[in-house]
């Protein structure tokens, strides 16, 4: 099973720790907020991804199962 990284944008305060720990999949925008690779996390980066999730001081970064459908948002 493959996991995908997702940011809770309300919880995220732009510490930037995630991009430091996982530059392969996360970069920061010009305001310091993470731009996350939308694809599944490659197995080779699985451990780093878990570290980044654990290190987020705002608990805003999550790994979600790829086979779960992306939530749709009826307004």
């Amino acid at each position, binding site marked *: 099973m493959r996991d995908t990284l997702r940011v*809770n*944008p309300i919880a*995220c305060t732009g510490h930037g720790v995630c991009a430091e720990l996982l530059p392969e999949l996360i970069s920061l925008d010009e*305001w*310091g907020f993470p731009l996350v690779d939308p694809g599944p996390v490659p197995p080779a980066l699985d451990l780093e991804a878990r570290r980044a999730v654990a290190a987020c001081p705002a608990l805003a970064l999550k790994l979600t199962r790829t086979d779960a459908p992306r*939530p749709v948002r*009826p*307004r």
Partner: protein
Amino acid sequence: MVNDVADQTAALNQPTGLPRLLPLVPGVPEDLRTHLARYGRPPLGDPGRLINAVEQAGLTGRGGAAFPVYRKLAIVARARGRKVIVANGAESEPASGKDGLLLRAAPNLVLDGLQLAAEAIGAGEAYLYLHPGVSPEILRALSQRAAAGLDRVSVTITEAPPRFLAGQESALVNRLGGGPAVPTFTPPRVTEAGLRGAPTLVQNVETLAHVALIARYGPRWFRALGTADEPGTMLTTVHTEHGAQIIEAEIGVPLRTLISQDTDVQAVLIGGFHGAWLPAAALGTLALSNSALNSHQAALGAGVIAALPADRCGLAEAARVVRYLAAESAGQCGPCLNGLPRMAAALAELAGRGHRKQTRADLERWAGLVTGRGACNHPDGTVRFVRSTLTVFAAEIGLHARGHCSATDRTPFLPLPDRMPLTEDDWT
């Protein structure tokens, strides 16, 4: 399955043509007596039938997202335990007036729909979420219905703050729970865990009014107007140089039929401030339907159609709107909080004279950066509006860059609040 016998029985008294929702005599609101004379009593007591009827009718939500109504009904109906239903009348788009009119002119139809849907999903709690003072008629309707013993579930009214995002589903649930009307991150969706954790069905008030008619007259009746893909009628708020008008229209009619022929139109805003500008030529070719509009990156939304007169400046209009949308960010998500004010400033610069060379590229980049990065669709909706502005008013941007403007009338056209809100203002 549709109950054919019931469908045929109802056929004897089925109304035809337009309007379906609005009063037969424009401007004369219906009270409970005239409402019952026109439509009869709501057919409560047969909850198993409604969700199928709504599915076969093909009704979609009229609050803006056009989500299939039966799917939300079915999700909450399947859930166990305490369930909640909310009629969302917090029409927060300054350019839309259709829900307010419906609540004043046909409050009983909305309340019928609320009771019928509550029964169908097994909700024991019902709320009506409104802006204060929008409809004294609804209070009168509630007391008349209580006296007549019409309602099975009592209805609690909760007031919405005057914010653009107040009616967003998760913001609404937050407000009902006693908190500020700001969106939350999904999942969970409110149909799974909404008010105080209970599965919650939120439906726009116009949607519920249609439900009340489908329950009475059946899906075949509902489909007699509209298109096969998008059946029924919808309430639209149409703005022209002659003012604003609420029109109940059959879905699929040519857009042109909604706008008087004697108006000289430059561009049309479809779907409100989260919607898109289309060139005036679109009026002659496009129909009032999402299938027609989607191929032009536009959607009906909650039915706002604004025909910008030829003598106004579309850039000035767009700049005012985006400044408002930036101020209406809940300020919770970094990209929206940072991106929208910058986009607003850039658009204001384009609407001025002689903008800097990089401004347009900045605007495009920020539009890309905020898309898909909010907890709600506020950044995405704002980007849709901005991108269509850049496309439809491209020639005007060039004109402004050289220090000119084609407008001869500087009066603001699109309606906005008198006082610009502040992100940090009260959200309760």
